[in-house]
């Protein structure tokens, strides 16, 4: 193991390391800790210039309650859920199939199609802005959650196909060959042989895509406007306009907006990291 495990080093370094860990963590998360502290302070603290001192009172409950009752935040949160969940289902379903087709079959153009998915997924997606906005407008889906979901599914299919195809490639091939010899149809092979083995990949992709889509801001402001269809990342800016300079509320709002993917990460940590680091080891 590298670096040398602290257990095998001198006592002073062991103690130093144990002390350094929490200090480094606090320094690393300092900007976030600041916002967390802001969110439980009363408004009076900011009026009196007490930004970084001890809160004069703990108003956390009131601040967070106001986020949910005094603004469109619940609406935006619901929109985020209604955009994120269908996107995850759609992109994972489509890429299970494309990944299967590209990972199992040998045919002309296989690698070319695969590379098209990969290249399309790597483009700075902003360059799609003008045509995709026009496309969405002409289908009558501008400013609808459906319009946003359809684009997200299509774009995420690129990344998901890369992921699924490589995962399926690594599955034992004799399993599929044996099923074929027994006369099992290709559709049944997909449903009953390959799909059950893909569960870890499906879990990993689901949490990753959930986080990516929940945190999307660019497409939210390009394809939607207003509280009817915008997700919480875009909603937070209108929330902040509503409560301009009310730092305790803006902080509480930001934390509410950031929380779902964070909760998802901690609940599904193993899958999340497995998905993110696919390919980081040979």
């Amino acid at each position, binding site marked *: *193991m*590298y670096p040398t*495990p*602290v257990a095998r080093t001198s006592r002073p370094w062991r103690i130093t*390391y144990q002390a350094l860990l929490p200090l*480094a*963590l606090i320094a*690393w*998360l300092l*900007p*976030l800790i*600041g916002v967390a502290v*802001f969110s439980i302070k009363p408004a009076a603290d900011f009026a009196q210039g007490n*930004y970084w001192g001890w809160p004069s009172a703990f108003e956390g409950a009131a601040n967070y309650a106001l986020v949910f009752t005094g603004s469109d935040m619940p609406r935006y949160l619901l929109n985020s859920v209604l955009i994120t969940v269908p996107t995850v289902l759609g992109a994972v379903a*489509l*890429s299970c199939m494309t990944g299967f*087709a*590209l990972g*199992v079959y040998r*045919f002309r153009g296989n*690698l070319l199609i695969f*590379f*098209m*998915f*990969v290249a*399309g997924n*790597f*483009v*700075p997606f*902003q*360059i799609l*802005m*003008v*045509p995709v906005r*026009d496309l969405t407008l002409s289908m009558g889906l501008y400013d609808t959650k459906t319009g946003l979901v359809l684009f997200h599914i*299509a*774009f995420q*299919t*690129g990344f998901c*196909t890369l992921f699924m195809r490589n995962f399926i490639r690594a599955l034992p091939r004799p399993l599929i060959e044996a099923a074929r010899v027994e006369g099992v*149809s290709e559709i049944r092979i*997909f449903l009953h042989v390959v799909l059950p083995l893909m569960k870890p990949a499906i879990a990993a992709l689901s949490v990753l895509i959930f*986080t990516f889509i929940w*945190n999307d*801001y660019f497409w939210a402001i*390009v394809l939607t406007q207003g509280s009817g269809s915008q997700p919480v*990342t875009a909603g937070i*800016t209108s929330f902040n306009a509503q409560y301009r300079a009310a*730092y305790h509320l*803006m902080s509480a709002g*930001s*934390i509410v907006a950031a929380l779902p*993917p*964070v909760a998802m990460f*901690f609940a599904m940590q193993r899958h999340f*990291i497995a998905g993110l*680091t696919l*390919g*980081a*080891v040979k």
Partner: protein
Amino acid sequence: MTSGFWKRNQQTLAPALFLAPGLLFFAFYVLFPILQSFQISLYEWDGLSPAQPVGLQNYRQLFDDPAFYTSLWNNLLWLVLYLLAIPAGLAIALFLNQTVTGIRIYKSLFFFPFVVSQVVVGLVFTWFYDPTFGLLNTLLGAVGMDPVNILGDPSKVTYGIIAAGLWPQTAYCMILYLTGLNSVDPEQVEAGRLDGAKGLRMLWHVILPQLRPATFICFVVTIIGALRSFDLISIMTQGGPFGSSRVLAFYMFEVALSEYGFRMGYGAAIAVVLFGIMMIYIAGFLWKMYRDERGA
């Protein structure tokens, strides 16, 4: 009859059927719009009235546009400075690659900034930099230094935003390296120790070669991240002050979709330039993948 045809040809038909929905979707929303961007860039179009073909005029105008050069220069700054996330991520990964109690929680918490939306990262850093109450200036004041208005100073603003972007990106690289370090061959490390390799020499000659796949992925995701930078700029400065923190992606959004006017053609021309820059990297990446596939 039909089932007989299916039975005989299913090996050829199945891949087409499985590919069709995903590929059509992807072509419709991603591949086709890329080509459309090229086409629209040859028109003057406000998105409503009929488009007027203008040839290469949008591009000629682009080369005389100081805002374009500012954006291009800032994109280069992003590309170069964003790479700092790689050594920084490696350093934190080496720091955390231990087995003391509670280390798993530490690793998760260090990774935290990556999971948080960039919108929130932008807000958090805007307040962190705030000249009147921001934590940065409070700390600077505590050691007797003058306050700095990072986001209000055209010569500092892009660096300030990049620093904010490095925060989640470093966390990303850290997690990639932690996974890589997990699979470093312990026998090689022990052999290196017996040969007297220690510290940085060990890192350079024994560890880093084994981390090559992780380093490669770090490069890919960091370069893509740098070229996609938009959210932080939009949240922290709206491209200001005086347009000094724009990048190509943001400038394109401004000319095509904001109060500055709806110049779709001009925006598409900027998109084409951005695409050209990215294509250099995509081509390199695909070339490496192609070689790996041939080798496998």
